């Protein structure tokens, strides 16, 4: 879901020649992402979610107050915390949760996941086109 949304956003910013937005994707977050985010004012992490939400949700991310690092599991808040410790800088950060349903080995997205992806993409376009990301965009669920 994360890479799929990144692909959509990347095509959109290229097509509409939007400046000052950069995208990146990988199998998972890792320590070097602390280095990457130090250069940005605002960072939005994107990932699939199994939480009990409708469609998608945007929440604020703050530096972690506990450690949950392992090689295969690095959270956005850990990356923020590492960035703060090493580079003495914390960008504003948000997490886009996109509801997914089936995570077994198979190809492609389910129909409902695809719908959520499109909803999230449309929301992202509005969000990134606007002057700022404010609290009105947060924690609410959109479907």
């Amino acid at each position, binding site marked *: 879901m994360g*890479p799929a949304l990144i692909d959509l956003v990347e095509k959109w910013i290229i097509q509409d020649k939007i400046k000052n937005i950069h995208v*990146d*994707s*990988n*199998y*998972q977050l*890792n*320590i*070097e992402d*602390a*280095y990457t985010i130090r250069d940005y004012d605002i960072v939005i992490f994107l990932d699939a979610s*199994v939480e009990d939400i409708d469609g998608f949700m945007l929440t604020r991310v703050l530096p972690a107050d*506990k*450690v*949950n*690092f*392992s*090689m*295969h*599991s690095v959270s956005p808040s*850990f990356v923020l*915390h*590492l960035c703060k*410790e*090493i580079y003495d800088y914390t960008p504003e950060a948000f997490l886009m949760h996109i509801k997914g349903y089936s*995570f*077994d*080995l198979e190809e492609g997205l389910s129909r409902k996941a695809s719908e959520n992806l499109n909803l999230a993409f449309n929301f992202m376009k509005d969000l990134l086109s606007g002057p700022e990301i404010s609290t009105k965009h947060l924690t609410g669920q959109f479907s």
Partner: protein
Amino acid sequence: MKRLNTINITTMGQKLTIEPVTRVEGHGKVTIHLDDENNVVQTRLHIVEFRGFERFIQGRPYWEAPVLVQRLCGICPVSHHLAAAKALDVIVGVGPDNISPTAEKMRRLMHYGQFFQSHSLHFFHLVSPDLLFGIDADPVKRNVLEVAKEFKDLAVQGIMMRKFGQEIIEATAGKKIHGTGAIPGGINKCLTIEEKMKFLIGKDPLNIDQMIEWAQSAVDLFKDYHKNNQDFIDNYATFPSNHLSLVRKDGALDIYHGVIRAVDPDGKKILHDVDYQDYLDYIAEEVKSWSYMKFPYLRSLGKKDGWYTVGPLARLNTCDFIPTPLAQKEFEIFKAYTNGKPNNMAMHMHWARLIETLYAAEMIKKLLNDPDLLEGELVRKGNKTIEGIGLLEAPRGTLFHHYRINKDDQIEMANLIVSTTNNNSSMNKAVELVAKANMNGRDKITEGMLNGVETAIRAYDPCLSCATHALGKMPLELTLFNSRNEVIDILRSE
């Protein structure tokens, strides 16, 4: 994540379960069985999750395998990518030894980049907290964020070394996710001159000379630590083992291609540089009812005695020399410590890992200066066969990929033996040793003791995700059993 800090053992015949194994990947648990006097009578490292990747790729066109198998692991996708491509080199009739020089060198560069990033990540961010703060230190202190706070330069080095390796992978595999660089019979791109120059003389610190310097300083850091903590480093979870790895045909350390060699704890060769296409003649896998992870063994020695260790320590125990100057110098110091005999000290796995990090950096520099990377034949073709085996050394150890296809070019059989599976018996043995040393006669488990068990497992750098061929989310759970084998508590973390 909630941790099991202390368990009071007041009844007879208790069974203690340590779950999850934190800072160890995937979903595993350790059970420790005590007798009436609270002495450890049995320990087991269980792998409790299984989703069969080998089944998933059945029916898929064979050429998809190098991309599909990367989903096995977010840390070593390149190992699976290349092992699959090597197996398919055989299937497309090019054979294991006949891809073009350009293709082999591009694949090697990708592989060394992966070794460099994975070993760096493992040492600086998983192991260094134990070494810098001590395995008994408060877990609030014993973590990478505290390393970042108190040893900022070290944490930055780890981050930049990992980033450099990742960028090598991106340049050679084509992209960060689901890279397509290696294809059956070769490779699909060369390195550009811009990419080459970026890695050779890139912006400080992201250039290869800085990486070599940092890799050397990491080896020195470990040696200094060893001097001051000799008893711990030499004796922790140490036991005699057979060792198995790929070596180059002339006996050099080689992580991409060669023959399989195994030595016993005294250095006697027990597998004599055999062709990995014949691995089934030499290696079998035992299934045990209590773990989804199989137990490989050498057929010639049988199930009881044929288990072996793979990974950095095994590679330095099986090879005769390292073909790069700085790493060779360190290899000689490493070998001299055991008078040329195999090194069976589990914590020396970290020493070996850092020597390999230096080796990978030197090999990257050597390849970056090789004109074959910039142009040359990318792909070769041959007469198709129905079966192929790819083998290489992943950061954690020897990795086998074996495929058979049908007349419609679909994969009909896949067998993957990953590094962690190869180390299954060794990790179980290490856990047993540590449990007996730390827990015999005790009626409490402290967090330090739990971390002691994990420290032993971490030396092997296990990836339980690869071992169970699973992917996606990994639920973490902590379960406590009483003497009647009843679950009395479960803690879960997300």
